[in-house]
């Protein structure tokens, strides 16, 4: 039983990080109707920037986390302004090709600048763990989870209480109506893309000290997160959160009791089952908060 609870705790931690990535991807899809195939690569970029700041520049973990998140968000905003902004409605397939290309450029650009070997990042929290009621709690992972929870709560607050956040939800729910009330699409979409991509960067930065950092780390997580947002329902943010936690826990439990090979297939098996039973995902479409 204790082993099981330990696995669930680990799974919730993993799930929270999936949620950061999945919610950003879902937000961008909801507002722009573009599936960002480069999303995993922005996660990688966040990890890379953090690794560089901590290891090479000797900056502390928390300031580096903030800098990395903002930096990735800025890159995301520039990608919107320079490339994604020019899309017209219904150019879905062009969006796929273009974002795959952006991902490739990021991956190879990072490999060129930083080398393609795996790197470990040591911070003041590495190798620290706490014993909480008999359970082993890793400090670095705990910090990642707390950071994720705070970021998700902040996004919820922005979407619920601010004018710009409400405009994002409005835009995702009915574009024509959003034009009619005078919402400027480029402003809203640019902010949504910057926020969504910054969240992926934050996830990468928060997890950099936990996993090895390397240029190709983006693609595998991207496909897992695709499975997650399909399970949760495309465009649904609570759906993305719930599905992330579900997958995180299931993976952790499966990995604990059987094999690591099966662990990575779990998300996709669940996705197939959900698609058969609920074609629109568990939570349907529309940014709901």
């Amino acid at each position: 039983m204790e082993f099981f609870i330990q696995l669930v705790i680990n799974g919730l931690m993993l799930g929270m990080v999936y949620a950061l990535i999945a919610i950003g991807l879902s937000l961008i899809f909801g507002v722009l109707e573009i599936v960002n195939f480069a999303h995993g690569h922005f996660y990688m970029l966040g990890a890379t920037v953090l690794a560089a700041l901590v290891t090479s520049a000797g900056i502390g973990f928390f300031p580096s986390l903030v800098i990395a998140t903002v930096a990735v968000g800025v890159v995301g905003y520039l990608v919107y302004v320079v490339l994604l902004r020019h899309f017209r409605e219904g150019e879905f397939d062009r969006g796929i090709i273009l974002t795959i290309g952006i991902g490739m450029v990021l991956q190879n650009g990072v490999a060129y600048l930083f080398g393609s070997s795996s790197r470990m990042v040591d911070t003041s929290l590495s190798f620290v763990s706490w014993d909480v009621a008999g359970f082993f709690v890793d400090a670095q992972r705990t910090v990642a989870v707390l950071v994720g929870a705070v970021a998700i709560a902040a996004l919820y607050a922005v979407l619920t209480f601010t004018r710009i956040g409400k405009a994002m939800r409005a835009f995702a729910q009915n574009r024509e109506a959003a034009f009619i009330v005078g919402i400027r699409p480029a402003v809203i979409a640019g902010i949504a893309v910057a926020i969504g991509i910054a969240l992926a960067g934050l996830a990468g930065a928060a997890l950099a000290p936990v996993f090895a950092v390397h240029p190709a780390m983006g693609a595998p997580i991207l496909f897992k997160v695709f499975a997650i947002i399909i399970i949760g329902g495309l465009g649904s943010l609570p759906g993305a959160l719930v599905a992330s936690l579900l997958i995180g826990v299931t993976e952790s439990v499966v990995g604990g009791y059987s094999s690591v090979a099966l662990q990575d297939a779990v998300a996709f098996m669940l996705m197939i089952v959900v698609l058969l039973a609920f074609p629109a995902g568990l939570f349907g479409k529309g940014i709901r908060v």
Partner: protein
Amino acid sequence: MPEKKVILELQDMCVGYSEPIVRNVSLKVEENTIWSLIGGNGAGKSTLLKSLFGLTRCFSGTLLLDGAPIQNLSPAERVRKGMGIVPQGRCNFPLMSVRENLEMGAYTLSHSEAKRAMERVLQMFPVLRQKLGESAGNLSGGEQQILETAMALETGPRVLLLDEPSLGLSPKMQQEVFENVESLRGEGLTVIMAEQNILGSLMISDRAFVLDLGTKLMEGAAREVLEDPKIKVAFLGADPEEAVE
């Protein structure tokens, strides 16, 4: 009667989607009038109304608001210049509450202006006040239509475009809609509405514009159009023999 100022002028406009649907339309809309836009199903009424708001593509021609060309402006800029539209089909935010929808309707206003605008439309449409916390998507069709009209009126538009405002309503509610439109004219608005209730709409209109297969069939005072034999036969169900006299 003194000459009224022309507020909206269409000059040889061709509008549509991937190709033009409505062609070579010219029109001078005077301030503080009601216009009926008439035509059979698929004549292009909705396309033309949307194009006035920048929601469809303008292939050629000029659209002047207060004498200044606006055909290249986005809908967001046209709202800020004093236009409003309630298109056919749902144009609210279904997962947001009625209150949030009204906040969005006042998106272009400052915080204090938005508050006043909301209060003003709630007084105009008291039924919305009891539903402020409900999701717009859960309202009845008629209530959603009222919400959408309220949203369009919040910015205090000078030109209001209405697409089939009485569609799907009971005769009594249709009458109410027409009375509301008349009172908007009383407040100085210019209204252009496409209507399937041609009789009801022509009765309150000053002018009418008849579209057929995307081109202008006729334009004139509402009363003249109402009396026109062709219109009587085509839209008002008159017997062709009698109508010609």
